[in-house]
C-alpha cells in the first residue's frame, strides 16, 4: 500500500506536501531542482515525451506551440466558456473540441484533465523519490468556488495520474487548517485567497470541542477566473499598446516575443511588490528596445479594477454568513497575488485589521492538504472540516425555470429528494436537467448533467420516481433514483455536460499505459532502485549496531545478500532488483526481530527494519 500526500494543483504553481511523522508538522517536498514549487507548465517534446515544471516553463519561450500554462482555467469548461480567454491566453483549442475542450500541443491533442494529470504525475514522482516508497493516494485542493464539472475534472486528472483522490478540499479551507495548526486560532476567520488564476473568500468558525477542533465553513464565494494572470494581462495590455504606438509592431502576432514580454512584465510585477518602481526592458526582434519604468502609484491604479473585482465575492460571503467585516477575529491572506501591497492595503482597510501573512502564501494550501491527507491516512481524527457547497443546485422545471433543491453554502455532504411523474400516457422516460448557479433561468445557470429516468409504460401520472441528489464531501454530485411502485432502484446514467465520461477515462488510461510502456519500466527501475537503497542503508545501520550480537554466519549471509543487491542495482532489470530486495529482507529478518525485541524496541515502536 502506498502513501498519501496533499497536493495543491495551482494555476501557476503546484506543490506536494506530507506530514512528518516525527514533528507532526506538514512539510512541502522539493523536486529535482531543489524548489518545492513546480510550475504548472506542460510541454510536449518532439520525440513525444512530456516535460513538466521548470524545464517546461523555459520552453514557453523556445517552443510556445508545444507548451501550455494556466491549464487550470480550462478545467471543466466547454469551448464556448473560454472564448474570452483566448484573446489573452495562447491556448490552442483544437476544432475537435465538443463538450470537453481539447488543446493542441505540437502534433497531439489533450484534454485539460490529461494535462493536469501530467503535473500530478510529476508531483507524485517527486514524493516517491523523496520517500523511497510508492504514492497512490492524495488529497487535492480546488478553488472553493469550483463548480461540479471543475471538481470532477480535477478528480479525473488524479485518476489519470494513478492517484486515488480521497478527498477534494477547498483551498481556503486547507489554508485555514494550516494556519489553525500554526497559530491555534479560534473564532471567526476570513480567508482571502488570491492566486494565479482564481479568487476565493471563505468565512470560517473555528470551534474547540472535546474530540478536537472543528473548522466549520459558514460561507464561501469567489471567481474562478480572477487572479494574478489578470494583473499580468493589465500590464501586457499597456505594454502591447505602447509597443504598437511607438514601434508599429503587434506583439500579439509573435507568440515567442509575446511570452518574452510576458516574462519581463511578471518580473516587473514581482519587483513592484518589493520596491516603489520597476524597470521593464524588452528588446524587439529588429534590435530596437522598449524600455520604461512603472511606478507603484501607476501600478496600483492599473490593477485597482482587478482588486475591486475581488471585493464583490467578499461582500457576498459576509452577507451569506450574516456577518459584518469588523466581526472577523482573524483575516488570513493566501495565494501569491496577496504579495501585492495594494491588495494587502485594500483587505486591511475593509476588515479594519492587519491580515495574517506569517505562512508562505504559496505553500500554505499544500500544507493544509497534507494535514487532511494525514488525517485520512492514519484515521486519527483530531480535526474535522465541515465545508460547504459554493453554488446552489437546481433542477429545470416548466418554462426553463430553475427550482433550487440545495441552496449554496449548505454544509456538505448535503442532499435533496424530489419526486417525478409522467405527464403523458405510455411515457417511458422522464428527462431531468440538473444545474448549478444562483440565477432564475436554466439558460443562465451552469448545466451539470442531463439524464433520463426509465419508467414502466402506463397511464400518465402512474409512475412515480423518487430521485436523491447528493453532494458528497468533495462537493461532487451523485444521483440515485427509485421507482416508488415497484421499489426498484434504477441506475442513473449521468452524462456530464462538460466532462469526460467513465468510458473516455478508461480509454485514456489504457492508451496512456500503451504509450507509456517505456516510461513504465523506467519508472519501475527508479522505484526499485530507490527502495533498494533504502533497505541497504538500513541494513548497514543495523550491522553497525554494537549493542546487538550478530553470529558470524548470519553476518556473512546478510553481507552476501547485500552485495548481490548492489550488483542488481547497477543493472537495468527492475524485477531482479525486487527479487534481491526480498532476499535481503529475508536474511535480515532474524536480526530485525532481535533488534525489535532488544533494548531498542521502545524507541523503534514496531517499525520494520526497512523503515528504520
Amino acid at each position, binding site marked *: 500500500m502506498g502513501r498519501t500526500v496533499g497536493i495543491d494543483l495551482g494555476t501557476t504553481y503546484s506543490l506536494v506536501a506530507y506530514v512528518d511523522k516525527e514533528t507532526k508538522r506538514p512539510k512541502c517536498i522539493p523536486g529535482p531542482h531543489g524548489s518545492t514549487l513546480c510550475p504548472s507548465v506542460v510541454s510536449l517534446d518532439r520525440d513525444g515525451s512530456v516535460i513538466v515544471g521548470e524545464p517546461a516553463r523555459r520552453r514557453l519561450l523556445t517552443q510556445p506551440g508545444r507548451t501550455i500554462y494556466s491549464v487550470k482555467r480550462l478545467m471543466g469548461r466547454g469551448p464556448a466558456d473560454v472564448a474570452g480567454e483566448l484573446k489573452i491566453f495562447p491556448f490552442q483549442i483544437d476544432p475537435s473540441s465538443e463538450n470537453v475542450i481539447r488543446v493542441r500541443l505540437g502534433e497531439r491533442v489533450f484534454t485539460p484533465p490529461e494535462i493536469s494529470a501530467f503535473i500530478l504525475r510529476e508531483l507524485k514522482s517527486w514524493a516517491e523519490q523523496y520517500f523511497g516508497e510508492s504514492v497512490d493516494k492524495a488529497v487535492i485542493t480546488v478553488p472553493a468556488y469550483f463548480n461540479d464539472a471543475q471538481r470532477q475534472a480535477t478528480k479525473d486528472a488524479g485518476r489519470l495520474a494513478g492517484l486515488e483522490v*480521497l478527498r477534494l478540499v477547498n483551498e481556503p479551507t486547507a489554508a485555514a487548517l494550516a494556519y489553525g495548526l500554526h497559530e491555534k486560532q479560534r473564532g471567526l476567520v476570513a480567508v482571502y485567497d488570491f492566486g494565479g488564476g482564481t479568487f476565493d473568500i471563505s468565512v470560517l468558525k473555528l470551534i474547540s*470541542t472535546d*474530540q478536537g477542533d*472543528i473548522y466549520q465553513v459558514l460561507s464561501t464565494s469567489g471567481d474562478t477566473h480572477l487572479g494574478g494572470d489578470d494583473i499580468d494581462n493589465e500590464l501586457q495590455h499597456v505594454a502591447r499598446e505602447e509597443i504598437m504606438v511607438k514601434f508599429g509592431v503587434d506583439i500579439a502576432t509573435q507568440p515567442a516575443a509575446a511570452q518574452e514580454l510576458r516574462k519581463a512584465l511578471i518580473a516587473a510585477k514581482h519587483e513592484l511588490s518589493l520596491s516603489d518602481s520597476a524597470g521593464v526592458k524588452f528588446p524587439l526582434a529588429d534590435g530596437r528596445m522598449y524600455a520604461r519604468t512603472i511606478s507603484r502609484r501607476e501600478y496600483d491604479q492599473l490593477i485597482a479594477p482587478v482588486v475591486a473585482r475581488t471585493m464583490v465575492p467578499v461582500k457576498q460571503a459576509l452577507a451569506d454568513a450574516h456577518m459584518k467585516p469588523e466581526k472577523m477575529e482573524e483575516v488570513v491572506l493566501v495565494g501569491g497575488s496577496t504579495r501585492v501591497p495594494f491588495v494587502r492595503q485594500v483587505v486591511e482597510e475593509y476588515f479594519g485589521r492587519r491580515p495574517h501573512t506569517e505562512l508562505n502564501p504559496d505553500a500554505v494550501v499544500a500544507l493544509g492538504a497534507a494535514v487532511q491527507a494525514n488525517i485520512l491516512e492514519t484515521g486519527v481524527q483530531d480535526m474535522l*472540516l465541515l465545508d460547504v457547497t459554493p453554488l446552489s443546485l437546481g433542477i429545470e422545471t416548466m418554462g426553463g425555470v430553475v427550482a433550487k433543491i440545495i*441552496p449554496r453554502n449548505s*454544509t456538505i455532504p448535503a*442532499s435533496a429528494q424530489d419526486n417525478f411523474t409522467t405527464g403523458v400516457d405510455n411515457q417511458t422516460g422522464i428527462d431531468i436537467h440538473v444545474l448549478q448557479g444562483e440565477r432564475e433561468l436554466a439558460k443562465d445557470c451552469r448545466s451539470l448533467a442531463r439524464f433520463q429516468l426509465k419508467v414502466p409504460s402506463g397511464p400518465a401520472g402512474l409512475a412515480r420516481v423518487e430521485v436523491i441528489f*447528493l453532494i458528497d464531501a468533495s462537493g461532487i454530485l451523485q444521483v440515485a433514483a427509485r421507482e416508488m411502485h415497484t421499489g426498484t432502484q434504477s441506475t442513473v446514467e449521468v452524462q456530464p455536460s462538460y466532462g469526460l465520461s467513465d468510458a473516455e477515462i478508461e480509454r485514456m488510461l489504457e492508451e496512456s499505459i500503451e504509450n507509456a510502456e517505456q516510461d513504465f519500466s523506467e519508472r519501475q527501475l527508479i522505484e526499485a532502485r530507490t527502495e533498494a537503497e533504502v533497505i541497504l542503508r538500513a541494513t548497514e545501520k543495523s550491522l553497525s549496531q554494537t549493542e546487538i550480537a550478530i553470529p558470524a554466519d548470519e553476518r556473512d549471509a546478510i553481507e552476501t545478500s547485500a552485495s548481490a543487491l548492489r550488483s542488481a542495482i547497477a543493472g537495468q532489470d527492475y524485477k531482479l532488483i525486487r527479487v534481491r530486495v526480498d532476499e535481503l529482507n529475508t536474511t535480515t529478518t532474524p536480526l530485525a526481530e532481535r533488534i525489535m525485541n532488544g533494548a531498542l524496541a521502545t524507541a523503534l515502536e514496531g517499525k520494520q527494519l526497512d523503515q528504520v
Partner: protein
Amino acid sequence: MANGNDYFSFFGLPQKLRMDTAELEKRFHQLSWKLHPDNFVRASEKERDISLALSSELNDAYRAMREPLGRVEYLLAHSGMRKEGAHKQQAPPELLEEVFELNESLDELRESREASEHGADSATSGVRAKLEAAEKNFAEKLEESDAQLDVIAGEWDAAIDAGADDTARRALMTKMNDVLNRRSYIRNLVNKVAAELAI
C-alpha cells in the same frame, strides 16, 4: 428518516419550536464527529455509503432546524400541514389597499425610468422616496409575522408539554400555516420593491 421519525428526534430533542440553538449546535457537532465521511475513508464501501447518507441527512436537518422559521416550515411539511394559499399571488384582504398603492408607485417608477431613457427629463426621486417608505412598511410587517410565529411557537410548545391531542395540534399548525402564507406574500413584495429600487 434513518434515526427516529423526524429531525427533532434525530438530534434527540422534543418536537418543540423554541430551541436553545447553542445546544442544537453542540449536538450537530457531536453527531458530525461520529458520522462524517472523513471517519470512513478506510472503511468498507457499505459503511462509506451509510456515512454519506447519514451525514448528509444530519447536515440537511441542521440546515432546516437552526432558524426558527425553518423549524416551523419543517414541522408543517413533515406533518403534511404545509398548504400554500390557493391563490398564492393574491393579497391578503387586510393588505389590499396598501398593495394597490405600492403597485401604482412601481408602475410610476418604471414609466419615469422609460421616459428618461428616451431622453425626457423626469424626476424619479419623489416616487423612489414613496417606494422606500413602502418597503420599510412591509419589512416591518415581515417582522410582525415573525413575532406572531414566535407566539404560536410558544403555544405549540406548551401544548406539547401538556400532551395536547391531535385536534389541538392541527389547529395550531393551521394557524402557523396561515401566518407562513401571509409572510411569504409580504416577502415576495419586499423583494420585488428592492429589485426595482436597485435598478
